[in-house]
């Protein structure tokens, strides 16, 4: 297996290389960071629905749609990406997705530990610290005849830009996205109190991968290969690929595995009701840890929104049968007025349709 320790590469190219290596069936470990920031969306994501395209255009942030799954991510030079490419027929390496995550997450976990940060792999695809905060995300794909496993070491992270990039239904919730990211996502810099040395992270990561992958042969990208990679980059930048997925309204934003912000809205007779719910566990049946309701409906007194309605829902399981009686109790209380809105409307605004 080859080792391509590429340090920094031009933004899009840094993410195209592993796609081209996989297409060509080259087994390799790639270590790379983008020279300049970019936004990467998952293969199944609809860029129009997931990304604030006006913002990224005005900020000069290029958009890339990877052939790997997952959500929208902000990438920059403070993240060191590892990409493992191997033939599906090579029995030396994991043959199932589950095995790939378990086996290939070990090297980045051990690399963190060598810096004094205890990190473990948490199913399905997160690296988390002892206190459960995400410090790395992983993903993968079958590309050509290869299995491709990717992830990153977060030396540092720009929470502000990431929270600004996501397209959300109501700008008032931007701060909630930022706070949720900051609370649930950590970095090496935050854990260590200082930015680690890039070279040291690269070296340790490679050494740990060698223990699992076996000896790695150092290699460099040839001019011919780079030409082919550039051609693939042009293909992947074509609007029909970049914006190739069409989905409905944006309805959730994954913060980390098992924690999602879920957006809902419903037009009741009494006005539009919008919700943002922080849900731990599965989207259906998980616990609503926090909730904010907004819209142009009338509720008097206004304070009963937080103290009455939202409080009646927070802490409950996100299931209609559990929420209905809680909301109904609030709606039936005599010390408030909410014309044109009934319990079913709130259920609908929470995104819990029949």
């Amino acid at each position, binding site marked *: 297996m080859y080792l391509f320790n590429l340090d920094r590469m031009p933004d899009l190219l840094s993410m195209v290389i592993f796609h081209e290596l996989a297409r060509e069936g080259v087994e390799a470990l790639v270590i790379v960071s983008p020279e300049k920031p970019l936004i990467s969306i998952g293969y199944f994501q609809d860029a129009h629905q997931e990304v604030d395209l006006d913002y990224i255009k005005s900020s000069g942030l290029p958009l890339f749609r990877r*052939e790997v799954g997952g959500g929208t991510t902000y990438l920059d030079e403070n993240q060191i990406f590892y990409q493992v490419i191997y033939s599906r027929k090579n029995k030396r390496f994991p043959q199932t*997705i*589950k095995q790939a995550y378990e086996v290939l997450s070990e090297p980045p976990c051990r690399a963190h530990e060598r810096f004094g940060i205890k990190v473990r792999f948490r*199913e399905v695809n997160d690296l988390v610290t002892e206190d459960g905060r995400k410090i790395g995300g992983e993903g993968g*794909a079958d590309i050509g005849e290869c299995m491709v496993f990717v992830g990153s070491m977060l030396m540092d992270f720009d929470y502000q830009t990431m929270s600004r990039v996501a397209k959300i239904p109501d700008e008032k919730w931007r701060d909630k996205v930022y706070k949720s990211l900051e609370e649930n996502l950590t970095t090496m810099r935050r854990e260590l109190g200082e930015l680690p040395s890039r070279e040291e992270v690269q070296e340790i990561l490679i050494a740990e991968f060698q223990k699992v992958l076996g000896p790695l042969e150092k290699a460099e990208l040839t001019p011919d290969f780079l030409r082919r990679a550039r051609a693939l980059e042009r293909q992947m930048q074509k609007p029909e690929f970049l914006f190739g997925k069409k989905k409905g309204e944006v309805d959730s934003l994954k913060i980390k595995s098992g924690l999602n912000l879920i957006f809902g809205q419903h037009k009741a007779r009494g006005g539009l009701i919008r919700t943002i719910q922080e849900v731990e566990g599965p989207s259906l049946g998980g616990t609503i840890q926090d909730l904010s309701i907004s819209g142009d409906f009338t509720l008097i007194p206004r304070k009963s929104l937080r103290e009455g309605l939202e409080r009646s829902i927070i802490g409950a399981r996100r299931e209609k049968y559990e929420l209905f009686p809680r909301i109904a109790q609030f709606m039936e209380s005599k010390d408030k007025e909410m014309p044109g809105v009934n319990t079913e409307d709130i259920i609908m605004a929470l995104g819990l349709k029949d």
Partner: protein
Amino acid sequence: MEVGGYLLPDDLWYHKEHFWVRMEGDVATVGVTDFFQKLAGEISYLELPSEGDEYSQDDVVGTVETGKWVGKIYSPLSGTITEVNSEVVDEPALANRDPYGSGWLFKLKASDLSELENLFKGEAALKWMEEEIRKKAK
């Protein structure tokens, strides 16, 4: 029948990449096996072929995302796509909940029924599944 905790209905044919085939005349209904969905975990997205598309046996006809991994969907037989399950596209978790029923993926009019010989059925399917469990489910 059930093999090592994985459902494997007797009346179906099985492709090595864990897709099942139910034959009705020359029309094949295709879905993912119980083994596939259990090992892959929650299926979050599916990209399926379009009606009228023609494929050869073992061709990649679509993609599936489970746990941030984008995998491939193969055609177990050569033929023309006649129907796509739009319900499973809208709600991919159907393929987890009911892989051999409402979670079917697509139907295909097979052009060469002799290709069924390349799939597993009955005793051969049982042996294949036992080997897959030994290799992949540990």
